[in-house]
């Protein structure tokens, strides 16, 4: 998305005397604009982000590690990782299938299908959680059936998986569709005429072409699953040590005035966000280099 083309200063051609005025003007305008933008970003973004790390280590390293050893906290970490381990692969497979179906076919209503994929983006996570409650809750569609079979979905792990999967459904497909379209299908068709099976074509031709886009989609999905709060809090019942993920732990600790504990957990999630951003930068650079080649 970002390129290095920026900041080429304007060079007026020789003999264009009247053009020197914009150039002189540019000095102070440039500084004023940069200053204003940085000030805004500081207020909204940088200072709050910085604050997470400062607050977590305010009492020093020892209390921080002490907070990380609490059983409630450890359970939240386990649950968060477990949900991600289930949701990320499922949504990756779906995203790949959906991207292939959309990018490799022209059909009526294609734009509509792409818009459908965006619904989880557009819907409030609370509404997403509500939908799942209306489906699987005690008074929901499948409630009586599930009750008879003694299967617990709401206020338990399955609902949290469903909610996280709903919220992050579009990410992989969204990242892979443009890469697939860019790559075109010539190589795949060549492989087909040479007698490769569909499976071989996917592994040897398609996947290498889309690997960076796919990886980015997977990383984004993972970050959002681990950080999902609204939908999960509706369907989980938020029972400490049972159905509490890390983002829920942060809110709970803050509400109980255990600010220190809340920030210790927040730093972990903040670290996850930073790692996500760094990987994104690396992947973007990789795709750029490949474009040049």
């Amino acid at each position, binding site marked *: 998305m*970002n*390129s290095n*083309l*920026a*900041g080429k200063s304007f060079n007026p051609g020789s003999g*264009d005397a*009247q*053009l020197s005025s*914009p150039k002189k003007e540019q000095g102070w305008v*440039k500084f004023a*604009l*940069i200053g204003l*933008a940085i000030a*805004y970003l500081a*207020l*909204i*973004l940088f*200072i*709050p*982000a910085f*604050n997470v790390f400062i*607050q977590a280590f305010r009492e020093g390293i020892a209390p921080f590690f002490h907070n990380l050893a609490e059983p409630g906290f450890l359970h939240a970490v386990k649950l968060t990782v477990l949900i991600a381990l289930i949701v990320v692969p499922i949504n990756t497979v*779906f995203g790949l299938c*959906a991207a292939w*179906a959309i990018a*490799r*076919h022209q059909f009526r209503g294609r*734009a509509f299908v792409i*818009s*459908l994929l965006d*619904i989880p*983006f*557009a*819907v*409030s*996570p*609370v*509404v*997403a959680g*509500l*939908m799942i*409650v*209306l489906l699987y809750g005690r008074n929901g*569609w499948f409630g009586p059936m599930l009750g008879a079979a003694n299967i617990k979905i709401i206020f338990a792990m399955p609902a949290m998986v*469903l909610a996280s999967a709903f919220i992050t*459904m579009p990410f992989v497909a969204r990242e892979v569709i443009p890469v697939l379209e860019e790559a075109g*299908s*010539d190589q*795949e068709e060549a492989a087909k005429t040479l007698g490769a099976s*569909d499976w071989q074509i996917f592994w040897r031709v398609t996947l290498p072409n889309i690997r960076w886009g796919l990886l980015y989609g997977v990383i*984004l999905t993972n970050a959002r699953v681990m*950080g*999902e709060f609204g939908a999960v809090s*509706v369907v989980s019942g938020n029972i400490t040590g049972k159905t509490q993920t890390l*983002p*829920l732990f*942060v*809110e709970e600790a803050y509400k109980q005035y255990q600010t220190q504990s809340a920030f210790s957990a927040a730093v972990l999630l903040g670290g996850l*966000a930073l790692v996500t951003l760094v990987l*994104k930068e690396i992947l973007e650079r990789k795709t750029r280099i490949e474009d040049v080649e």
Partner: protein
Amino acid sequence: MAVSAPPQRDRIRKNPFHQLSKVSWPWRITLGYLTIMLFLPVAALMLKATTVGAIDFWKIATTPVALATYDVTFITAFIAALINGVFGVLIAWILVRYDFPFKRVIDAAIDLPFALPTSVAGLTLATVYSDNGWLGSLLAPLGIKVAFTRLGVGVAMLFISLPFVVRTLQPVLQEMEKEIEEAAWSLGASKWQTFWRVVLPPLLPAILTGVALGFSRAVGEYGSIVIVAANVPFKDLISSVLIIQRLEQYDYAGATVIGTVLLGISLLVLVAINLLQAWGRRYEL
């Protein structure tokens, strides 16, 4: 686009779903997953909403408490999206046009609101903007309270919708040739005139798309707002939190009606965004 691969002739010729056997596996997985994960939940919400009945639906949707949450949610989100529209143009502009120290880092940091879990955002905003926080303590003497007020809701929405305008605008700005501006200058236009008459018009679709995306995201935001606001009805209670409160009282009909209103507006914004993007493509060569 190329012709798609012919559908697989599977061994399941004999199965009753003869039509289905002509559909390739990726399609089946896509449609199956979409049905279970997307259509079913949306259908459950819609059907639950229809059981409420039109008159009751309208009554619940327009109770004073609900109306107040729409005001806090939509008006605040709209203002936040507009503010980010202005500053997003500014940020995209300096990132594309100028060079300054730490530019790469700042550029990468713009995506932080996408990656940072919302409860962490809420926690840190509530701390920084509380009366004894870093920024809140500077505003307190002026009589400005941010955390636990509607202003706090606005700040959380600014945070969450910050990346959209910047990211939709950056590629468009990079594509734009500077020659047009230079031509305008050489014809005697001032910098200001050049910006308003030459630079801005082709950028408008991208800016509006970014504003609409940001608005949609701000309307749906819950995690950071529930922490940074006091969640008092008629003051700073947003619609998403009202849904939660209705659910906690086992008022499923109430939760469903507010949820349907939110879903409907989200879908309308989604349609608007698609139209804006179609309009934006007209400017592409």
